[in-house]
């Protein structure tokens, strides 16, 4: 008994010691992965963008309705038929090292994005031909061709500005000590353990920042991440499993925030990439249509994702003003699917489906298998580790491939690279000259209504051709404790720290 008491006392002392270290205005966020390099020019991961939301402000931002709002810039103007973009900058903005965030710094940062070898940003803004400093608060960009989605690119890493002085001094090592103009400045990073930021008092919007510190902790196991939140070791987590949602919603100490993503999950078909394109599903659009009619997206969504995803037939999510409302998810129609297969002379076509190895996608594939079987399909599931499946897709070694895209605020980012002839991610080598022409046209149009019409038509065409069978827009589940208030979900699933508050312990 005495031993038990000693043990209890010891554990209690440890718990007290543990509690004391956290008693300050520190926001602790659990991430699903450890981010890659913390340098906006080279960073490539989704999770890295979450940290950048606290560290690096962008020229523009998006709000919950995907509208472009000013951040480091105060406004912009198109001229010369959409070939010249003039950006006005916010005055009196400082970088974390005290340097001025002015037109010269913007020129430096954009130049760095464009000309650094291995830059992850170059492709996003390669249309910029010259960058001109008009005055300390005005930058003029001349483009090689009119490109309306450019502003949207500046709402992500391409729009993040870095201190020229710090970036020049650090060279290759800038990611070890990034210096930006965001609400928090970099303190330290212990790989795989934590990234610590502290409040930047001279931030232009400092009145809206209510923490002294932010600690990002990568915890890859989603159950452990959730357990940390429940135990009070974290204040907020990202990417919860859909299956954990019902129980967490019932927990009075937690708030679950669903954020509908900007991207989609779909099945890419091989229509023209090598020998595998000759399979019935790639060769005949009727077989693809039959495949679509044989499946029921709603049922799969209910079974695998608790009905939390949004079934779709297009690349652009409902949150976007470019979402085509006329495109409806078709109901399941096995008889019609059978008729289409008969017309195509393929009563029992074999379809090899490549599935990246994750429990939910395996389950999705199995349901697809049994649903399409009723229409006559012989769906064979080929589960593959993700990196290998991408390699196979590049080589054209696939017939059908379940692939997701995290999405971009501008619809161009969800379409161009996937469905145009030379798009780097057009793995199935789909080609429709009309689609290519319209895709180029919409890039040059600044008027929203005109773009909506063009993009609407593009998505109607691709729904007929079915190079990609769009399945659903996923939902990112964030969760935080009830002590945390003011979190504003935006479809890009970033954690914007401005305006968030943490009640005292």
């Amino acid at each position, binding site marked *: 008994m005495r031993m038990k008491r000693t043990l209890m006392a010891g*554990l*209690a*002392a*440890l*718990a007290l*010691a*543990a509690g004391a*270290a956290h008693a300050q205005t520190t926001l602790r966020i659990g991430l699903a992965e*450890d981010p*890659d*390099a913390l340098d906006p020019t080279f960073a*490539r*991961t*989704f999770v890295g963008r979450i940290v950048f939301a606290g560290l690096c402000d962008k020229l523009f931002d998006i709000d919950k309705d995907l509208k472009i709002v000013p951040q480091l810039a105060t406004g912009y103007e198109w001229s010369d038929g959409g070939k010249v973009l003039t950006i006005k900058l916010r005055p009196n903005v400082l970088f974390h090292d005290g340097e001025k965030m002015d037109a010269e710094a913007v020129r430096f940062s954009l130049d760095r994005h464009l000309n650094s*070898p*291995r*830059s*992850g940003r*170059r*492709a*996003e803004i390669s249309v910029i031909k010259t960058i001109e400093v008009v005055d300390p608060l005005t930058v003029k960009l001349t483009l090689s061709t009119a490109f309306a989605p450019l502003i949207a690119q500046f709402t992500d890493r391409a729009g993040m500005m870095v201190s020229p002085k710090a970036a020049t001094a650090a060279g*290759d*090592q800038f*990611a*070890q000590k990034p210096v930006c103009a965001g609400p928090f400045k970099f303190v330290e990073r*212990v*790989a*795989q*353990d*934590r990234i610590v930021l502290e409040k930047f008092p001279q931030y232009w919007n400092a009145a809206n920042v209510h923490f002294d510190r932010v600690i990002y*902790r*990568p*915890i*890859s*196991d989603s*159950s*452990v991440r959730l*357990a*940390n939140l*429940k*135990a*009070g*070791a974290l204040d907020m987590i990202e990417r919860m499993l859909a299956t954990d949602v019902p129980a967490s919603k019932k927990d009075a100490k937690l708030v679950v925030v669903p954020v509908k993503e900007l991207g989609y999950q779909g099945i890419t078909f091989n229509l023209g990439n090598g020998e595998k394109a000759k399979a019935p599903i790639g060769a005949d659009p009727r077989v693809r249509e039959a495949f679509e009619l044989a499946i029921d997206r709603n049922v799969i969504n209910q079974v695998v994702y608790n009905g939390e995803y949004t079934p779709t037939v297009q690349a652009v999510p409902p949150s976007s003003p470019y979402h085509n409302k006329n495109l409806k998810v078709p109901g399941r129609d096995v008889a019609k699917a059978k008729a289409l297969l008969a017309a195509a002379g393929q009563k029992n076509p074999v379809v090899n489906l490549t599935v990246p190895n994750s429990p939910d996608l395996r389950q999705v594939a199995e349901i697809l298998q049994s649903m399409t079987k009723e229409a006559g399909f012989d769906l064979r599931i080929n589960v593959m*580790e*993700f*990196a*290998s499946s*991408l*390699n196979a897709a*590049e080589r054209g070694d696939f017939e059908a491939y379940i692939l997701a*895209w*995290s999405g971009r605020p501008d619809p161009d980012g969800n379409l161009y*690279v996937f469905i145009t002839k030379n798009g*780097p*991610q057009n793995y199935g080598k789909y080609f429709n000259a009309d689609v290519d022409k319209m895709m180029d046209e919409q890039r040059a149009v600044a008027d929203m209504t005109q773009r909506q019409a063009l993009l609407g038509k593009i998505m109607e065409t691709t729904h007929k051709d079915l190079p990609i069978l769009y399945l659903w827009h996923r939902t990112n589940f964030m969760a935080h404790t009830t002590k945390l208030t003011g979190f504003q979900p935006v479809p890009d699933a970033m954690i914007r720290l401005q305006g968030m508050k943490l009640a005292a312990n």
Partner: protein
Amino acid sequence: MLAFLARRLAQVLPTLAVVSVIVFSLQLLLPGDPALVLAGEDRDPKVLAEIRERYGLDQPVHVQYARWVWGVLHGDLGESMRVGVPVGELVMSKLPVTLQLGSMAFVIACAIGIPAGVLSAVKKDSVWDYLANALSLWGLSTPNFWLGIMLILLVSVQLGWLPPSGYVSPFEDWRQSLATTIMPAFVLGNSIAAVLMRHTRAAMLQALNQDYVRTARAKGLTEAVVVNKHALRNALVPVVTLGALELGALFSGAVLTEQVFTIPGFGKLVVDAVFNRDYLVVQGVVLVTATAYVMLNLLADVAYFLINPRLRQE
């Protein structure tokens, strides 16, 4: 002595060369192109080509190997492709964490396993024996990751006694350090405690049947003295050898335990690096571990040589 050392060292060098080839080949066996993983979601072909060029992935395999070995011989393990930090720096910062966790786990394993083994041998066929056997069976058959998650849910989430994850260095705050490592160390030590218990029990049973124990009892010594002074001391010899062997198991077990408790140690470093195809980190970690094993073997041989005179005459 010098000749012996020279001979053994001469054997170590080719072993290390073979190890380096195996370690390097391992990354070639990993499916998936590292450049493709590193390029992230956008996968721009131009960027892919630049990444391949930067890390020499566009070179023939033998050139890649030669470059890497040349670097290693000059003390340069390369840099992490994902975070851009030198691999040597990463390894050196993670090693102490795993050493701390491993040592604590080992102490816990000995503290549970050896007394339980002695108890069950001394009280053979009693309730204590059955209980200890049942516990050891449980310890052997409970996976680390499952026990880890269950403990987090019970001790951290339900009872709120200990932090569920993370790590603090003992030099920074020893109490916090203990709080963050005690649970993972227990999980890690648990299965080894079971192995130690089984072996201690067997060795003790054998020792208790020896003539000298009967003699000790005949002399009228108390049972405590017979068990502790005569039987246990002799029974511990094979247990100590086994314990040393189990240290290896401890480090492989750390891979899973560190994942569950998010301890930024050696195990987590290598698992994350494998998933991110950060192959220079994988190579660096495996090479350092393998070299450590080879060197420990060498030291053990030297120790045998010093302890056992018969070896010296050969």
